[in-house]
């Protein structure tokens, strides 16, 4: 039995030597400085060449908020739990842990009515073990045991590895990365100094830096700035500063710009241009409310092709008022002439969170859950068997966006960040000159995973009025995309929309919550749910740990059938609701006359379990989670009615989209483009099919690594890998926690048993052997290609570049 052929499996291997930092450089590739293709000039990219005048000096300092244990006041502390000792010694709060979840509680008593948001927390501390240091913040006093229970499902977002040391170290937590944390929510600070027993620690100080203080400390320049949950690559200036740019404009230019401020008093943004000795104010807009972006597009068509000086000026009642210039880009309306031949005007990646392929009518489901997708598949391509690389968003989405296996991109746990050396889909499009926009209602798909890389504008879940960082409906995003598309109809644009309609909790909104099922089925569900609750089964939180498992039903001798059926009724309704929103998007594309000029890709990041393997949610590596839908629609580019039955994997999507767009595929991409499968057979005169970009079947891999949050057991307790090769799927359970009963290997007939119900390992030892070898070889490959740690990257960068990357939030600022 031979091992698989690397060359065919991984047609685009990482170039030898140092990882490419192409995307990091944010640089132009030829032509005018900043001209990234199509004639687009992003002012934030050429800011280094800009001249800034009129600075009135950095703003007056704002008093820092610091907790010190050497006698200063304004706070109280207490031992929360899991501590053998805690006291102040030599001006430090010192203690020893006696549990894996030790908690130190600090309550701030002064300065808590500040209306600002937290930027970062800096802890100066020393710990005697190699462990992890975490922080949790709240407005209300914490309930320690509730915190421990919650930790089993969700880790704290503010956490980092620490190394045993004798000296005090400084640990900085970038709170801003987790969305807006209002100052009121920083009253209570919980510190988990270690996640093991017997660790000794000393805390010297805890320093909170709020946004105003942070902004007062940074120079004018570029940054990644958010207002009300919407982020832009931003040029920051202070009144009465004037930043001037010498530019040669493209043929039919306009300035795409959003402006906003944190100031409560009016700030006036002015765009002035000088051409042939005349100075003209092209636009002036006063922003009178803080924390909101306002569009300020400016037509430059009369200056097409000219060399000009462009000024961004700020005016306010007082000096040093902050102004944010969001994604200021000179774009060219003449896309067709300016870009590569056949380049699409627009590319849209639509990712449905938690969507099982087999619940779509497009894939033969008997309920009409997805009429719009069915139409798109009929006019485009339907991929019958796409596989996700992981079973939850945090891990699987970076694979879609980088064409890298999780083992390679290294995003495995709740708090991991995609290394800046990865090249994302957005970066590839951005570099090719596309306007890039992302909207996500799952925080994993934003800055919290470093997935904002390459996007000029990102709408984080915090921007949704529903709050809580989650929306049961794609509606608010589609509402925002429609006017954005109208403004950017000339293109080129790349939009990523990540929606969570199908995600639990299952009941959708009216009328989709009652589209299937009836009063009786809902009553049956309620009845079973209350019986389960009485018996204390399941937390019903919609979280990883919260849904009832098969054992819970069996223990009470309840038939789970009616319960699951009603969940599916709701789940199906949510899908239909989402499908209607996709319909609006397509309608807009057609109304804007773009349908012959776009690439629309629809995919899911993973599926969902309905007790097929004993659990709910998406916790296991089997078919219900790994089988995902994939539909491509690009009239004129993809043959209508294309059906692909080969098994594909999510990492194949990025090279395929890029190839369809005529944009170079990053060398590091591990997927293979299936663009050739989307075309009508192109026969050379000899009758032999085009060989250039031939697609070949390869094994497909999915993985699951435990993330225990330093608790036992965690939400994802197993380590497992899966490979699909031909019709077989092998699951290798590498780590099985105590008390769980899984065989080491499970083999399934993937073609006939897509939900992995019947284990055929015992009857097919040689298949098991062959496939497990594939996994081993692949794993070695994926690990060898692993992206370097951020620290390694930092050491290779020059200081200016490093400053820019940290300003954009790609890496933590040193």
């Amino acid at each position, binding site marked *: 039995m031979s091992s698989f052929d690397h060359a065919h499996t991984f047609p685009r291997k990482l170039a030898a030597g140092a990882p490419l930092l192409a995307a990091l450089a944010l640089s132009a590739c030829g032509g005018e400085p900043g001209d990234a293709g199509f004639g687009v000039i992003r002012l934030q990219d050429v800011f280094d060449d800009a001249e800034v005048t009129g600075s009135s000096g950095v703003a007056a300092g704002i008093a820092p908020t610091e907790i010190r244990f050497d006698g200063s006041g304004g706070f109280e502390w207490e031992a929360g739990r899991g501590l053998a000792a805690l006291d102040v010694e030599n001006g430090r709060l010192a203690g020893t842990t006696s549990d894996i979840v030790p908690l130190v509680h600090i309550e701030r008593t002064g300065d808590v009515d500040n209306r600002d948001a937290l930027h970062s927390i800096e802890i100066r501390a020393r710990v005697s073990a190699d462990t992890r240091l975490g922080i949790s913040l709240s407005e209300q006093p914490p309930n320690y045991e509730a915190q421990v229970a919650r930790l089993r499902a969700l880790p704290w977002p503010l956490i980092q590895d620490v190394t045993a040391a004798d000296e005090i170290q400084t640990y900085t937590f970038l709170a801003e990365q987790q969305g807006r944390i209002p100052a009121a929510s920083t009253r209570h600070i919980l510190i988990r100094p270690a996640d093991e027993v017997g660790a000794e620690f000393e805390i010297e100080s805890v320093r909170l830096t709020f946004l105003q203080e942070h902004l007062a400390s940074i120079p004018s320049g570029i940054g990644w700035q958010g207002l009300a949950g919407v982020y832009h690559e931003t040029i920051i200036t202070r009144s009465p500063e004037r930043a001037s740019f010498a530019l040669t404009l493209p043929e039919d230019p306009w300035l795409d710009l959003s402006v906003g401020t944190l100031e409560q008093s009016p700030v006036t943004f002015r765009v002035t241009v000088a051409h042939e000795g005349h100075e003209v104010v092209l636009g002036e807009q006063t922003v009178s409310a803080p924390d909101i972006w306002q569009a300020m597009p400016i037509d430059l068509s009369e200056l097409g092709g000219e060399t000009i000086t462009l000024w961004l000026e700020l005016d306010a009642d007082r000096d040093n008022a902050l102004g944010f210039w969001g994604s200021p880009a000179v774009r060219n309306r003449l896309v067709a002439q300016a870009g590569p031949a056949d380049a699409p005007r627009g590319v849209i990646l639509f990712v449905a969170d938690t969507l099982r392929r087999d619940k779509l009518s497009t894939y033969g489901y008997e309920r009409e859950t997805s009429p719009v997708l069915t139409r798109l598949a009929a006019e485009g391509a339907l991929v019958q068997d796409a596989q996700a690389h992981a079973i939850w968003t945090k891990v699987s989405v970076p694979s879609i966006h980088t064409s890298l296996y999780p083992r390679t991109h290294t995003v495995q746990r709740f708090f991991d960040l995609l290394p800046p050396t990865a090249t994302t889909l957005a970066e590839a499009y951005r570099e090719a000159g596309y306007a890039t926009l992302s909207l996500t209602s799952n925080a994993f798909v934003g800055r919290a995973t470093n997935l904002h890389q390459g996007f000029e504008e990102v709408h984080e879940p915090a921007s949704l009025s529903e709050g809580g960082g989650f929306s049961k409906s794609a509606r608010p995003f589609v*509402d925002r995309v429609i006017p954005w598309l109208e403004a950017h109809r000339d293109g080129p644009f790349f939009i990523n929309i990540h929606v969570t309609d199908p995600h639990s909790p299952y009941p959708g909104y009216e009328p989709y919550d009652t589209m299937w099922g009836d009063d009786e089925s809902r009553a049956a569900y309620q009845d079973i749910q209350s019986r389960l609750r009485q018996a204390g089964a399941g937390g019903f939180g919609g979280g990883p740990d919260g849904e009832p498992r098969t054992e819970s039903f069996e223990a009470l001798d309840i038939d789970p059938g009616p319960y699951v059926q009603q969940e599916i009724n709701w789940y199906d309704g949510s899908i239909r609701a989402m499908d209607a929103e996709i319909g*609006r998007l397509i309608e807009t594309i057609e109304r804007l006359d773009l349908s012959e000029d776009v690439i629309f890709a629809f995919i899911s990041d993973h599926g969902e379990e309905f007790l097929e393997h004993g659990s709910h949610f998406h916790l296991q590596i089997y078919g219900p989670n790994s089988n995902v839908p994939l539909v491509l629609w690009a009239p004129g580019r993809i043959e209508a009615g294309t059906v692909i039955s080969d098994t594909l994997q999510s990492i194949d999507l990025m090279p395929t989209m890029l190839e369809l767009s005529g944009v170079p595929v990053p060398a590091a991409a591990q997927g293979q483009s299936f663009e050739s499968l989307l075309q009508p057979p192109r026969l050379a005169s000899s009758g032999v099919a085009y060989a250039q970009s031939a697609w070949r079947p390869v094994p497909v891999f999915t993985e699951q690594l435990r993330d225990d949050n330093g608790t036992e057991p965690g939400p994802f307790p197993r380590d497992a890998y899966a490979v699909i090769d031909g019709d077989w799927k092998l699951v290798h359970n590498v780590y099985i926690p105590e008390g769980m009963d899984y065989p080491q290997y499970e083999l399934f007939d993937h073609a006939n048993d897509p939900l992995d119900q019947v284990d055929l390992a015992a009857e097919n030892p040689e298949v098991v052997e062959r496939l497990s070898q594939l996994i081993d070889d692949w794993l070695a490959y994926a690990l060898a290609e692993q992206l370097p740690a951020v620290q390694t990257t930092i050491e290779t960068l020059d200081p200016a570049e490093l400053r820019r990357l940290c300003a954009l939030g790609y890496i933590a600022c040193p």
Partner: protein
Amino acid sequence: MTKPTAPVILCCLALAACGGTNEPTVIRLQDEFANATVAGGAPPEPVDPTVLRFDGQPAPGYSAALGVADLRLENGSLAGATTAEFPIVQVTRAEGLDNPDILHTIEIRARVSAGANIGVVFASADAPNAQAIAMQGTLIPWALSSPLLPGDEFQTYAIPVGTALNAHAAGAELNGYGTRQILIRPSDAAGAEFEIESIQLIFRREYMTTVPSGISWQAFDHRGKETIVTRAPERVSYDLTLPSTPWLDVAIATAERLPVTFRVLATQSGETLFSSERTLTTAGRWEPMPVDLADLAGQRVTLSLELESEQPGALGFWGAPAIRNSGARPAASPDGPQGVILFVADTLRPDHLMPYGYPRETSPNLERLAAEGALMLDNQANSTWTKVSVPSMLSSTYPRTNQVQQMLDRLPAAATTLAEVYREAGYATLGLSANWFVGSATNLHQGFEDFEEAAALDDEVGDTPSKSARAQVDRLLPWLEQHRDVPFFVNIHVTDPHSPFMPQAPYDAYWGDAGTRRRYEEGIEKFRQVRPTFVEVGPPAGGEPTTVGLREAGVNPIDILQQHYDWYDGSIRAMDAELGRIVETLERLGLRDDVLLVFVSDHGEEFLEHGGHFHRQIYGENSNVPLVIWAPGRIEPGTVVSETIQSLDLMPTMLELSGLPAPETAQGQSFVPLLTSRERLAGGIAHAQGTWRPAPVFSERMPESPATEGPGLPGIVTDMRLYSYSVIDGGHKLVHHVFIADGLGIPEYQLFDHVADPLDQDDIAAENPELVERLKQLLGDWQEYADAARFPEDGIATENLEPAELQRLCSLGYIAC
């Protein structure tokens, strides 16, 4: 003085298309609906009625909220007895709360033994404060009420909701959730027995199943529009010739939860030339759907509005569908400004504004406008509160003539508003109001194609009007961009300066300091001891600080006043910044030389000049109002008018500046002659055609509701109750108080030197008896005149109208159906 004309002309009622040129400014499809063909209608699907009954299980939740004894379920009814004149029974709905549709009618089937009226209000809170609602109800009568037929028989009381006021659920739309709590006042008599058998809520969709498709006034989220209502798969088609630069200006909405697709089609001899569609998936909101028709310029086409849904009979609303012609000027006034904006600041005194000499920098933008335009030094409001002064201004009629004098009065349909005149001339008309008096509650939506009511704003302070013009300006700016090429008239009414005085940051701390703030808080705390009804959200909720009250409490009035000034001034500054954004946008859109921007206030505010706060008395602090007109190219920069004029002069003035005739009903006179330097340079000899002559100016301050007539309800509102008329003529002001609350010690007549004493501080009546006599005579003549000119009641004004026309007017909410 203009004479009233008889018979009243119903020009604007007719909503007629404007005069015959080949190139119309606008073709409003709602106005042309009678000429449209409607095809393909499906019978509407029946809608399950929303009925609350008390004979089955489970009965709706109910409780005796106030003044009701022995409330029980009996014989299938909710029965009880009233123990007070303001009894309230609370009925709580548990189902259908997420209904996005809004209420059309409520029907209560009940038997009541005694009383004159049955009424209802709605609330959404878990536990509405019945005591507070009753207290307010004594001041503002419930709009949703019906005369009772007391006796042994069950009666069905059907109360149309329409655009009527539900002040007690201010801000909440009367949709499923907004009607969660039904508060019924079964009788206004104590000791009455009542039995309520059922309550039926008829929502718009259900109501619509009973009426044909057609035009009406429809609101979503309190944004009302002249609307064509259709049902899927209906198609409304118009044969028309498109102008030279046509676009369809329309907003669309639905009350359905399933997707509804709106399609605009242009065909010629059956061949489709153009089609554009838009699907709505969210119920209950307007979405703009502008359609560019430039490719079809000048063509004779069939234009169709078509609705599609998987649910036959699904309702679609086409809001203010107008084919506008970019670049075209109204045939009636080719030289008029392209855009007209009337900016009304509620409760704003001129003496707190920079152009009027105030030392604080409260209004830099207004000062600039005054310097570039005209400043009117002595403009007088015709009343001292919004409800009465604004209709007067917008129709150029005295309150005694237009009869909007109390809380629930509505402007008669026979009045011609400023918006109606501009609408008829072809202007796009938009109203944005932060005060519910200025809206459909007063019938002031007349003439507006779009009107955003106060309740459409997110309230920033309690249930009072918005403290910031920001939200309105945020909505106005994109509308201006969209209408930059067509004639437009916008009326924006903002309430920044209105109490409660404290504005949003940073304007709350723009002036003053911690010491001022502390003295204020301590003073208020002491004042609360003597006036427990005082609440900071301001009058009329209860007992504002008066000189008498402060004296009783031992508070130095300046401790209260200084903080009020600081906040009031901060509010003005906040508003001025928003005014600045409007001007900035007009300039950015290249409209600077083609607009008429008018800034005015409806009345001022008292700061204890006459012992009270709020705006209750007819003295100068309330009646003097600012007026600035900015129209570069039309009005000489730096024009200053010192003559005494009145707010009802504004309408004829604006119309003259726009090249449009004032309606014959207008009682004001245009002061355009005072604005044009040509007139001034001509040695005082006015242009024969546009002569302006000094005229007496009249104002009134009468009871705000029947409850406050006579001795009223002392303690609830204020210590200061005074009902009065005033006249200013020849530099003197006479005030005639027709009611004076006990203990105020004020004479019936007071005379002031209006020029030297603009705040009416020194009564000089005793020294000038013959002057008093002369002005008394003027007042008497004026009252006779104003009464004689009264508009006819709607029933009389409309009696000769055709049924179709009558139907249309009632659909638009101008008259009762």
